[in-house]
């Protein structure tokens, strides 16, 4: 089946549940609602043979409502077709259905999203932090968490301190000048 047929049958079965569809440079993205996630995911895996979940990632649109966006990248090995599914979830809800029983690899991806963004996954068999330690009080990849970190203390487990930035973050400004000009000590806020 070519990708047109694949996406055609997706559109036919879930036409009214797809909020938005876009295509860019051969990549198709469907925006769906969080309540339809499991149904569409099962359909993609079983009927359309999207048997490989490449990645789940999350985006923090700080200031927008709904705040978080979760992006699923699916791949069909028999047809060599990639599909992107996006859904939005607001901060007050903060919970999305898990797909870890559909694609087992989602287990750790969802744990990472929980650890870094604080979005919980309903039905996840083992939802706990994966990169930071259990009991760490913050969600580091949210936009309102500073790069240098916040102090925290868990005696005998771990501690964190604020990192001295010393005029950084040190970023490169594109130009063909010498490195002294390409790498100013800190990016001025208006750039």
């Amino acid at each position, binding site marked *: 089946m070519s990708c047109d047929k694949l996406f055609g049958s997706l559109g036919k079965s879930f036409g009214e549940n797809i909020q938005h569809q876009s295509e860019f440079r051969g990549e198709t993205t469907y925006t769906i609602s969080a309540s339809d996630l499991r149904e569409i995911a099962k359909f993609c895996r079983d009927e359309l043979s999207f048997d490989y979940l490449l990645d789940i990632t999350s985006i923090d649109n700080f200031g927008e409502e709904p705040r978080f966006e979760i992006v699923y990248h699916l791949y069909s090995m028999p047809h060599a077709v990639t599909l992107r599914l996006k859904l939005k979830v607001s901060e007050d809800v903060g919970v999305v259905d898990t797909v870890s029983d559909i694609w087992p690899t989602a287990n750790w991806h969802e744990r990472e999203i929980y650890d870094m963004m604080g979005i919980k996954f309903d039905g996840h068999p083992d939802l706990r932090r994966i990169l*930071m330690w259990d009991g760490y009080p913050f969600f580091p990849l949210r936009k309102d968490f500073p*790069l240098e970190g916040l102090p925290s203390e868990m005696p005998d487990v771990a501690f*964190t301190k604020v990192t001295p930035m010393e005029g950084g973050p040190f970023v490169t400004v594109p130009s063909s000048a010498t490195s002294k000009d390409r790498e100013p000590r800190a990016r001025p806020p208006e750039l």
Partner: protein
Amino acid sequence: MPETRSTAYDSKIEGNVILTRFDAALNWVRKNSLWPMPMGLACCAIELMATAASRFDIARFGAEVMRFSPRQCDVMIVAGTVTYKMALAVKRIYEQMPEPKWVIAMGACASTGGMYRSYATLQGIDQLIPVDVYISGCPPRPEALLAGLIKLQEKISTERSLRDQKPKLTEKLDDALA
């Protein structure tokens, strides 16, 4: 009554006897058999392995026995990024090492946190344990690690273990031999 007394040493053996300070002998022994505790956390561990391998051969300098048990080690080589998650484990391993012990911070991440100025990386292992030698590099070449080890050996050769720990005995010996 014989006029002379035969001594315990004869001239054949006297040539093989060296008289030196106890401290010098102790330092020589310690510095030439530094058994490393490889705290290989990240990429610097690869260079540590390369230094231990045949081409660069850290065994030439006595640091052959990379015991992964801290109870049997002299020097902890912290090779790699120390995250806050791992920091207290490194401290616990350091506390399990028996005295005398030294620490080499290998690479930028162990010395100062390296390129990772962020919420998750400890900005230098010297925030937790006392470091004797810092080796810069990302990762440092094996020759740089060997140079750091030699620098640590030079530092050990300046130690005053007996003189500091037994000052009264040292004074008595100095007076007796003076």
